[in-house]
């Protein structure tokens, strides 16, 4: 079966696809990381069986999906962190940044690394006098969605000039394709700063900044600090009766402020596939993802879902049907 979408979870989805494929030899899962926007588009026009996206469906997409195939199931599969990675080879020490400062950087209001705003957050660091090159995602990206949503909570100016979304118009900076593209641009350009997912930063050994969270602490991104954000979100899941809650801009001890879920999506009624076995495979794969699949999350630098989240996801998975008949997970 064919899936596609976000590049952030691509490494772990590939792992899951091959592990699941080993357990179920008659199932072949292909996931292509083209960006959350492409994934959602593929799900809507049914060229994909399931989609991966860091951004939940917005109103327009949901309406479209409901017209073409009915309601859509969106479940979080893992959590992660969006980190600010930078290329300052001669910097000794870890850079500290805050939401408003990052917003100003990406708005083009802070253009040099030794700007007083950055200096005031890093009094003990020697910052070079070189221009900042802001790198952003050029295609429709869930990472974009998460990052811009976070920046909107930090800066009114950002919300009114750029707003949030999978694709936004960045006032300045260079575009790159996919998490890997941004990583490459960061490695090549001194003075560059970009937003990528934590696992890419770790795999490529790129320095990342500590971010100041809503409680004022400077927190380092890690699976643990992302999970802490997940815990804080449980309340919202019940209050707003949805699984697609924000993990960013949450207060709390050791909570990383730009954490996010990434979602797996499929239609609630899979009857349109006409192939019951394929529908069953989708359900089984999603089940695998949130149970056995979670075991490999931490070693790939993703934050696994907490117990509370898992329960709620299971309930959601039980609502998937095939032409009206419920499709339960078959162990």
């Amino acid at each position, binding site marked *: 079966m064919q899936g596609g979408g976000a590049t952030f979870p691509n490494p772990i989805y590939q792992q899951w696809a091959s592990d699941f494929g080993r357990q179920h030899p008659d199932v072949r899962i292909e996931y292509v990381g083209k960006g959350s926007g*492409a994934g959602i588009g593929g799900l809507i026009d049914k060229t994909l069986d399931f989609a991966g996206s860091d951004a939940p469906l917005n109103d327009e*997409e949901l309406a479209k999906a409901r017209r073409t195939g009915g309601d859509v199931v969106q479940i979080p599969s893992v959590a992660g962190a969006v980190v600010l990675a930078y290329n300052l080879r001669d910097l000794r020490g870890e850079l500290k940044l805050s939401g408003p400062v990052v917003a100003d950087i990406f708005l083009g209001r802070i*253009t040099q690394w030794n700007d007083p705003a950055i200096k005031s957050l890093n009094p003990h660091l020697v910052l070079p006098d070189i221009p900042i090159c802001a790198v952003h995602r*050029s295609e429709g990206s869930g990472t974009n969605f998460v990052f811009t*949503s976070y920046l909107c909570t930090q800066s*009114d100016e950002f919300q009114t000039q750029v707003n949030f979304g999978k694709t936004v*118009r960045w006032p300045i900076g*260079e575009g790159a394709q996919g998490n890997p593209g941004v990583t490459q641009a960061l490695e090549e350009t001194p003075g560059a700063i970009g937003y990528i997912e934590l696992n890419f930063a770790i795999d490529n050994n790129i320095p990342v900044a500590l971010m100041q969270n809503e409680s004022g602490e400077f927190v380092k991104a890690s699976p643990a600090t992302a999970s802490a954000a997940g815990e804080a979100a449980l309340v919202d899941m019940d209050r707003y009766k949805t699984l697609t809650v*924000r993990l960013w801009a949450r207060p709390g001890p050791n909570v990383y402020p730009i954490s996010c879920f990434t979602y797996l999506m499929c239609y609630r009624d899979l009857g349109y596939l006409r192939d019951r076995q394929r529908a069953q495979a989708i359900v089984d794969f999603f089940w695998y993802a949130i149970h056995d699949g979670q075991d490999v999350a931490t070693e790939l630098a993703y934050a696994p879902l907490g117990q509370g989240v898992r329960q709620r996801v299971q309930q959601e998975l039980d609502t998937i049907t095939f032409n009206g008949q419920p499709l339960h997970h078959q162990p």
Partner: protein
Amino acid sequence: MTATVSPSSAGPMLRRGRSGEDVLLRVAVTGGALAILGMLATLVLVLFVAALPSMRRFGPAFLFSSEWRPNALPVLKLDGHGHTIRDPRTAMKVVDHYRAPAFGAGASLFGTVATSTWALLLAVPLSLGAALFLVRIAPVWLVPFVSFLIEFLAAIPSIAYGLWGMFVLGPWMGGPARWVRVLGMQLPAGIESRIGALAIHVPGLRWICTTSVGGKTVLVPPTGRDIFVAGIILGIMIVPIITAISRDVLRSVPREQMEGTIALGATWWQSCREMIFYCRSALFGAILLGLARAAGETMAVLMVMGNTAAVPTSPFMAGTTLSATLAGEFPEAATSDLQRGALMEVALILLVMSLVFNIVARYLVIGKWQPSAATAH
């Protein structure tokens, strides 16, 4: 029934009438010819219809607006005291209403024009020079060899150029401060930035090396992914076309013309100028064909340009072209009808542009000489 007399088989023809197989073949080949007409018609029609919603919505301003904003921008709601209100669920400020998404091909169009201009600046002198070399300088045994090599350049697929530009040329070029690098030797970073800082004060260099961000003049960061590099790659790509056509055009200049000028005591270069002047319209056509190719090129530009939907103020900044916007944004256009319509309109603009260039070019070139399929594609 009389058989038709066709010029290609002039001469005595037995009046046999049309046999079955004649009719069959005739139908088949006419079908082929009609297919070609049909292909163009379908292309124009489908794109036109697909672009209609966007054309109706944005009107002619689409061509000039450089705004490519797929999302709506909020205007924040203010409470009684004129302060914004925070929404606890999203942690953002509450929105009063939205300014609708807007699309415009302005930035893409600018990018296409800019990269094509650089490409022509590079390619035209080189191509004309090479064409003159082939026609007036090179010994007879050398001509096929060199022509062959130049046509080799045309056979290389565009993605190969893109890769080369992305991994070899781009990093080497890396912006104006790096130009001080001599053949790969790297100056210490401090000196590079100091030279760059000087550039701000030199009036000529100021335009290319700096850009204005939020009112401040700032040095363009050296990324190697910019309009200029894209222009160079495109220039290399269109050299074979312009050279090949120019060579054949120049070759077709009648001997008497050249001998006449030499008899009048003209130097070699002066007689060359006469030749160029003589077939200037056909040469212009050749250049137009090269331009058409440059404007329509996708892959090489996509990989080398940086792709930001904004109008760059310096050739060392990233930008986008019509084809790059199309290729880059299409995957997600499925989710937004308006965006897809806008992209279709971009495609239509690209198609019309290339049609116009091609038509004018063929008209200019055809007067003097027929382009051979092997040389111009």
